[in-house]
């Protein structure tokens, strides 16, 4: 194993907050956990990130933040020390609806600008979140609107519920789905193809919406400059114009004709683009500010989706489900399109879109270089994540890839790599302590630390 990344730390524990500069993007700082005692985890193997471990390293945690990870980090007295064989970062479920109001999850008239945050219901089914924590899942990407083509803005949330806001990222992604059975009706081929085209059409419209906004801004700037120049001119020869006008007025009155004002002409002000919340949301995905997660399963739709999204170069596409994506492995790897796989055993009674389901998909995609994420299938049983990763390894996936698929990879794809997914200084203190390898379902999970608080022991 690579020698641990050694971090020397001055003995004095820094009291100041890690500077905001450390954090990337529109991320909310977790408020201080109520004054928890200092926590320290000592483990035979500390997995900083899959593939990088420290031999009997120590993880120091204070106020919900990992303060230091290293070989011989000094542990201040008064800290509570937890021993274990292996320590690694908390699992991140890439595809879940944990803690959401069930009606909203399957609401068909969700629009691209709907926010999953509005459905986050801490008072509903707390035991689902407790079970998820006991399964090691400390944060999850949750999504409403599984039954509509566009499902709005997903969010990245912590699974433990406390007074501090449980939201890690309000707008982790824009989501959509193609070819799913909506309202009990299984779409035929033409419907499915039409859904791809509607999705692409919406992306295109949003792109033009954003371009026209930029255009409008430029036109308005030039127009305003023009007007300002015009006004200075007019003010300059206002006195002359006033004299001329009085003369003309007098003449018209003398001749008994009716005085006619001079016609004033100027080019019209450019019209602003009408504000459309849906286009705003989709435009953010087209510009790559947030990834676009599309649940799609059959080969024909994946083929069409990959071809049609080619021109959107800044779009960060992520495919969920991807049951028949085996033959597109190279293209997915080359275009760096992440794939969220749901490797659960399925009997014969599976939904129409999972007909070609095979547990080996995750392994094959990973071997072809695709960035593979593992999710619990959009349902609320996130506690199965560890079993799913183990099953994927059992069917040919490399162990390090599988651990990455539930820790660092989802954090990276959803722009939260600075907060979760790895055990490094400055990260949120989500730490799991095992009696064996993290994916060894035979070895029980001893401790779960979520945001610096020991929740399971």
């Amino acid at each position, binding site marked *: 194993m690579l020698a641990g990344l050694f971090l020397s730390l001055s003995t004095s524990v820094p009291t100041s907050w890690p500077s905001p500069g450390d954090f990337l993007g529109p991320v*909310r700082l977790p408020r201080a956990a109520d004054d928890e005692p200092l926590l320290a985890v000592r483990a035979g193997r500390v997995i900083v990130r899959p593939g990088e471990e420290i031999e009997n390293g120590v993880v120091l945690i204070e106020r919900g933040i990992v303060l230091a990870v290293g070989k011989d980090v000094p542990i201040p007295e008064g800290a509570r020390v937890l021993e274990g064989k292996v320590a690694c970062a908390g699992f991140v479920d890439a595809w879940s609806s944990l803690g959401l109001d069930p009606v909203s999850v399957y609401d068909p008239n969700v629009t691209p600008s709907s926010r999953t*945050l509005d459905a*986050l219901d*801490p*008072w509903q089914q707390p035991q689902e979140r407790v079970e998820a924590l006991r399964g090691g899942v400390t944060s999850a990407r949750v999504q409403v609107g599984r039954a509509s083509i566009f499902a709005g803005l997903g969010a990245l949330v912590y699974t433990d*519920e*406390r*007074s501090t*806001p*449980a*939201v890690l990222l*309000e707008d982790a992604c824009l989501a959509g789905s193609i070819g799913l059975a909506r309202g009990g009706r299984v779409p035929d081929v033409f419907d499915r193809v039409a859904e791809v085209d509607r999705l692409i059409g919406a992306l295109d419209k949003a792109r033009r919406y954003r371009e026209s906004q930029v255009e409008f801004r430029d036109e308005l700037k030039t127009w305003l400059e023009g007007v300002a120049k015009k006004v200075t001119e007019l003010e300059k020869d206002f006195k002359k114009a006033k004299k001329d006008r009085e003369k003309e007025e007098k003449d018209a009155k003398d001749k008994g004709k009716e005085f006619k004002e001079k016609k004033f002409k100027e080019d019209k002000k450019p019209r602003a683009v009408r504000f459309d919340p849906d286009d705003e949301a989709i435009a953010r995905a087209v510009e790559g500010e947030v990834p676009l997660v599309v649940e799609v399963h059959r080969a024909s739709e994946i083929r069409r989706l990959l071809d049609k999204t080619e021109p959107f170069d800044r779009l960060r596409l992520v495919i969920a489900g991807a049951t028949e994506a085996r033959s597109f492995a190279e293209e997915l790897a080359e275009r760096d399109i992440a794939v969220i796989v749901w490797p659960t055993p399925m009997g014969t009674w599976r939904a129409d879109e999972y007909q070609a389901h095979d547990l080996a998909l995750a392994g094959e995609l990973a071997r072809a270089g695709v960035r593979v994420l593992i999710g619990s299938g959009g349902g609320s049983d996130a506690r199965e994540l560890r079993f799913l990763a183990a099953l994927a390894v059992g069917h040919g996936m490399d162990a390090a890839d599988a651990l990455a698929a539930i820790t660092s990879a989802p954090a990276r794809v959803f722009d939260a790599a600075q907060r979760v997914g790895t055990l490094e200084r400055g990260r949120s203190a989500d730490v799991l302590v095992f009696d064996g390898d993290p994916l060894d379902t035979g070895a029980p999970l001893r401790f779960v630390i979520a945001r610096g608080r020991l929740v399971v022991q």
Partner: protein
Amino acid sequence: MNAMLLPLSLGVVCVLSPWLAAQEEDDWTISADMVYTAAGAPIEDGVVRVQDGKITAVGKGGGGSLEVAAITPGLIDLGVEIDTGLYSVEQSRESAASLSVADALDLFSFQWKRELTSGVTTVLAVPADYDVVGGLGVVLKTGGPATLEARLVRADAVLRGALGTQPSSGNNAPRFGDPANFYYRRPTTRMGVEWVFRKAFYDTIQGEGVTEPAIAADHDVLRRVLAGELTLSVAARATQDVRTAIYLKEEFKIPHMIIDDAVEAWREPELLVRSGASVVLPPFPADGRVDDGFVNDSYFVPLEAARMLHDLKVTFALSGHGSREVGTRLSDQAGLAQRGGLAFEDALAAVTLTPARMVGVDQRVGSLEVGKDADLVLWNGKPFEPTARVVGVLLNGRLVLDPRPASR
């Protein structure tokens, strides 16, 4: 727009004192400002002594290990409607008299505990009313180990029949073909229901050779009803159903009959008095109107119905129908009966001794007398008043709801 602050800390949950693991101790002395024994005058500053599940002493005196405002006997509800729905009645034949609901009860259901913690300690469980003659009902306690022999007070307490619209609900006669089999059902009207009812008793009385063992068993049960060994409990809500029940009672000279869920029994005073049937009143709806539920019709029960039946000297009991809403349970019905003019003692009797007597278990439960089961309800004020509440319950001498922790 900042994210919502969603705190975990729920509002202080001031729930009923939590269900305590059944206290092992079996002997208690409980004193109260008023002890309503339902078997004589109420005792001021009385005390009740309980040992090994039985009442060993009732009398004046104080200093009990528990001090409460009032003690009443465990309440008894004959119309509690806790059953496994359509699984509790055998619909393969119209009259399944020999089948008992004892084999179809779910003693793990939370509804028993809901009744127990609201003061109801003994109930009559009967099959659902989807058959004309549903089968045998049992009287059992609402607490204790979740097995029937632990909770049973009286097996085969009543034979359950039903008139009105429910037994015929959902049946549809075919447009052609043999109507009599199980897959096309008779009856489809109230007349049909009465025909099946009369036919069951008529065949029993004729008693000619019946080959089918199940039918023979049914006839034995019906014969016991005719001989008066078994009480017949008939669900009859509308005026015409109450009349039909009484006519059937007089036609077949059925000695003991309870008219259950008798919404409009108050409209037939002469028939009730003449027939000598006893009555179980439904919970009093706020606007007096009870919906039929199977057809678009509704029936009317005034608040004074209990007082009217009392004045007619008809034996009657009140029922809460296992209501989920606080304020409409059996203890509240006794209050509403008083609002209709019934005296407190008669209201107390209508939820304790009278129902016990109607199903023949009054030698074990129904009143606070030495030797009876130690089923006690402890109140924090005048019983059945809205300003009072059940704070403690003893079942078979075990404290199943503890008044001591200061719970709201």
